[in-house]
């Protein structure tokens, strides 16, 4: 009995990544942008696990751990920044946070 073909996992990973990128660029709310970043990271995790299964090596698993740790730390810091920005600017629209312009 065959399992799910490997290529499907990779395609899923690519689609998730593309969705993450488009969300990152096209969304207006800061929190949605962050969620897109997390989505991108998870898509990459999936890709790592897939390849690790393909080559029967443990490297991919280890690297996913690293990615997850980084994602968690980044989320913590990023949310702290968002809170501060919201307190100062009273808006979650990233286009309005542009006082460095000109």
């Amino acid at each position: 009995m065959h399992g799910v073909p490997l290529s499907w996992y990779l395609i899923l990973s690519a689609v998730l990544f593309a969705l993450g990128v488009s969300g990152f660029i096209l969304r207006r709310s800061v929190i949605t942008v962050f969620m897109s970043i997390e989505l991108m990271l998870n898509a990459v995790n999936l890709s790592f696990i897939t390849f690790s299964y393909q080559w029967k090596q443990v490297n991919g698993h280890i690297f996913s751990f690293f990615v997850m740790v980084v994602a968690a730390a980044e989320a913590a810091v990023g949310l702290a920044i968002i809170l501060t920005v919201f307190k100062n600017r009273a808006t979650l629209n990233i286009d309005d946070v542009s006082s460095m312009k000109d």
Partner: protein
Amino acid sequence: MLLWLIPVFPLLGFLLNGMLGRRFSKGVINTIAIGSVLLSFAWVIKTLLGLGDLKTGYTEQYFTWIQSGILSVGMDFTVDRLTAVMLLVVTGIGSLIHIYSIGYMAHEGGYYRFFAYLNLFMFFMLTLVLAANYLVLFVGWEGVGLCSYLLIGFYFDKKFATDAGNKAFIVNRIGDFGFSLAMFLIVVNFGSLDFGVVFSSAATKPEGTLTAIALLLLVGACGKSAQLPLYVWLPDAMAGPTPVSALIHAATMVTAGVYMIARSAAIYTHAPAAMQAVAIIGVLTAFFAATIGLAQNDIKKVFAYSTVSQLGYMFLGLGVGAFSAGIYHLMTHAFFKALLFLGSGSVIHALSGEQDLRNMGGLRRKIPWTFVTMVCAAVAIAGVPPFAGFYSKDAILAAADQHYPWMYWLGVITAGMTAFYVFRAIFMAFFGTYRGHEQPGIMLVPLVILAALSLAGGALFKVPDFLAPLLGAPEEGKDIGPMLISVAFGFGGIFLAWLFYVARPELPDRVAAGFGGLYKLIYNKYFVDEIYDAAVVTPLVSGSREVLWKAVDATVIDGTVNGIAHRARGMGGVLKLLQSGNIRSYATWVLLGSVVLLLTIGVLGGLR
């Protein structure tokens, strides 16, 4: 023998008076200034007595100044008979003029500065005379040019004085350029600038090279000794105080060119074309300047043109091979020309600043000593035997007659004109009617000494015989005819002057009116200054301003440098657009960058 003390005494005087003189009293300044020159003179006497008959030169080498490749130049001083003559003239007449200046400059401002500069001049002139190689000579050469500039422009608040100082220095510079080129040629061809080396091997070099070197040295001498065409600075240099005119522009600095050519006799005797050039320039200058001197009304200008003319005689003497006759005339000219200038200073002093001959007169009884001494100088310069000028001028004219009779005749006519304009000045200033006051004694003593030298110096100091071992025996005339002719012309000039300015005072104006155009020509110095201004100075200045300044400097160079700054700003302006402050555009750039990176890695064959 400590030759170096000779120039160093005046140098010390310059340093002391220059740096501390502002706080010294006049007495202290005088003691330092005069004392240093007198010490120098005394040391010269001591050295010459100690060196014996000087048939060969005596050299002292102090240290190696330049050691570079093939060229090795030492700071060396040398004394031979030629140096001895020059040293005595420079220090002797220098001392007398320093003493005279005490009286002349007593009422002037900047007293200590004047003596400081005068001492500095003595230092450089003595360095020039004592030099044992061309480079040390050139140090002295440039130095006296500097001092000339400083002293001509001594009254620095008068524009015409500072202009004259500039003119002297700049015209001299042209001559110095020729001198420098000559030195380069000497280094290339002889491998050394040392007199001993150059002169002993001069005979072995090709004539063309020697002619080139000699002609370039001549250019330098023309600048320093005010010959055609570089004489224009000397009449203007009369803007300086009269002792300066006497010392620098009569007795010493302007003779540096003559000395240099006499020193380089070994080169010139092997380059006959150059010697002919020297003689031609000399005789033409002598004649030309004498014609201008006929019509000048400023007493100092008359003597200035006379100096140019007499220097022309010296060059004539050098050019026909009578080197020692040229130096002989240098010495006698120093006596009577310095005296004429100092005497005219006396006259100007007595009339409280008046320099125009037409406003002078009747000073004969008012300043009798000045009158007597100036008449001594006048008869000497007119070539009346047996006074100094007769011997030296006759030696030159006799030699000229042997080689180029036309030069002899020009020289004789010039002698007549010389007698005329000098006695014209004497008659206009001292005869007739006016008033004035006699000089302080201290100004008279040098006049009397110089008068004695003018009368007896020619007979006493037989320079050509003295210099014969070094420069060749003087040529004797075949017969007495040429000598009589020149003396006759001299007396003729004196008689004409007497006729024009004492017996028939209305004659000069009638003659001037009769010769209208010619008179205007010589009165305006042949418009040479105006010609130079139009032909050389104005094109240079406007060329500098229009081409070099506006076009090259402002447009090209500034444009390039400023243009680079503009480009940098432009690029910065473009790159600035990246910093939009818009977070989404940053994200887009990150994405694009990563895509490009991945593609590049893929194209280049992957990570493995």
